[in-house]
């Protein structure tokens, strides 16, 4: 059985790892390479690393750091942040990264997705959609760490990304970021229904129950989380953690058994 993926998402800021709340006030949580080493030991399903400085500063991806991370990672790695060209994507894949994640550049120029997919293959191209719930209902995609509106609905943006050759969509709920009160299941279900490529949901997970709720609602999707895997306890002490294989198997089996049987 293909299992839903449980994916720590690490945010890089000033060479260190941070965890944000609603994309603000990043709290330092440690050194990226050290975190990867701990996640190796825990045999995590996959890892997402996003450089949250690159796009807003107009900087190119830090290939030195990406190379170091890729060498260290014993699990599949997605890297995102500052990728604006086919050549950058090709080089990053060449460093040993499995998937490149695009966001602002892909939304500004959707042809970038197809050009990169042609070069590295669709299976290695991820489009990340940072989404805010709108005051009068509905959703909108934002870029540049949530500061720039795109006027695009995530369902439309996800369909467009898939049509251009994205092999995975990551939908990230800005309002839920760091809140640890559960995923936006409505948003996840809308995007899941709109595309036929794998979907990964990010933003809001605060407990293993939240992961289970996502799998029960959306089936085999990726459940990504930042805070859940770097904080422990009510005072958010930094402690990298991840469920064991047995815990994950149990969680997944229980969650998927709650799904209505499909005909």
């Amino acid at each position, binding site marked *: *059985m*293909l299992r839903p*993926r449980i994916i720590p998402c690490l945010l890089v800021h000033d060479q260190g790892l941070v965890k944000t709340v609603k994309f603000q006030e990043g709290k330092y949580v440690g050194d990226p390479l050290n975190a990867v080493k701990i996640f190796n030991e825990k045999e995590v399903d996959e890892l997402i690393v996003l450089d949250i400085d690159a796009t807003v500063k107009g900087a190119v991806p830090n290939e030195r750091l990406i190379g170091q991370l890729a060498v260290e990672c014993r699990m599949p790695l997605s890297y995102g942040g500052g990728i604006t060209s086919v050549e950058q994507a090709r080089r990053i894949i060449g460093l040993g990264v499995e998937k490149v994640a695009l966001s602002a550049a892909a939304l500004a120029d959707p042809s970038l997705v197809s050009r990169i997919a042609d070069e590295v293959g669709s299976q290695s191209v991820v489009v990340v959609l940072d989404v805010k719930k709108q005051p009068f209902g509905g959703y909108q995609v934002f870029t540049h760490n949530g500061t720039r509106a795109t006027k695009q609905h995530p369902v439309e943006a996800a369909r467009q990304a898939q049509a251009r050759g994205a092999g995975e969509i990551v939908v990230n709920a800005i309002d839920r970021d760091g809140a640890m009160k559960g995923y936006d299941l409505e948003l996840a279900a809308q995007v899941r229904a709109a595309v036929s490529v794998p979907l990964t949901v990010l933003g809001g997970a605060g407990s293993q129950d939240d992961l289970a709720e996502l799998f029960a609602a959306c089936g085999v999707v*990726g459940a990504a989380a930042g805070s859940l895997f770097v904080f422990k306890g009510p005072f958010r002490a930094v402690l990298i953690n991840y469920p064991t294989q047995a815990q994950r198997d149990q969680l997944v089996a229980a969650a998927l058994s709650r799904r209505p049987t499909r005909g």
Partner: protein
Amino acid sequence: MITLVDYGLGNLLAFSNLYRRQNVEVTVAKSADELARATHVILPGVGSFDHAMERLDASGMRATLVALANKGTPLLGVCVGMQMLAYGSDEGSRPGLGLILGRVRAFKTTPAAQALPLPHMGWNDVAPLPGHPLFAGLDTDARFYFLHSYFFDCERTEHVAARAHYGLDFACAASAGSVFGVQFHPEKSHHWGERLLKNFAEL
């Protein structure tokens, strides 16, 4: 000594790092001369079938690779590297290496897989053929990381080394003599992959 075929595709670093941790020597072959000396060969691969075949042809290593396989040198194709062992692929028009009888087909064209997300991405259970040397110690609870939209359709069941299920049962590992292919990524599959690659090195 493991020789990684470097024709510009695939995550060579992941293989070499893993083997270094196991104290197995690894070298990289970029030319037919370098490849000719190999005792164990790994052919990695990502991206589209035709692109991979084109790059391999351009590297000048194709004939040497086939010659090594024909004289019984253990060869392991990984992901698209496994698919390259077939005659050809529905994904492209270029001829494959033809080292294991079969053709690469799309999940999309099979009714059972149509409702499922593609690519097939993530950790799936793998059921090896009992006693298969590549899967020694992996008889129960084997799982590996997959990332692909096409699968190897073995012509002969005796070439199926392991099966996985995604909409349909497919050969996620195949072998014919000393030629092996795995559709999943052992280099990114934690202790399961480490064991499989160790098994290969010890063949």
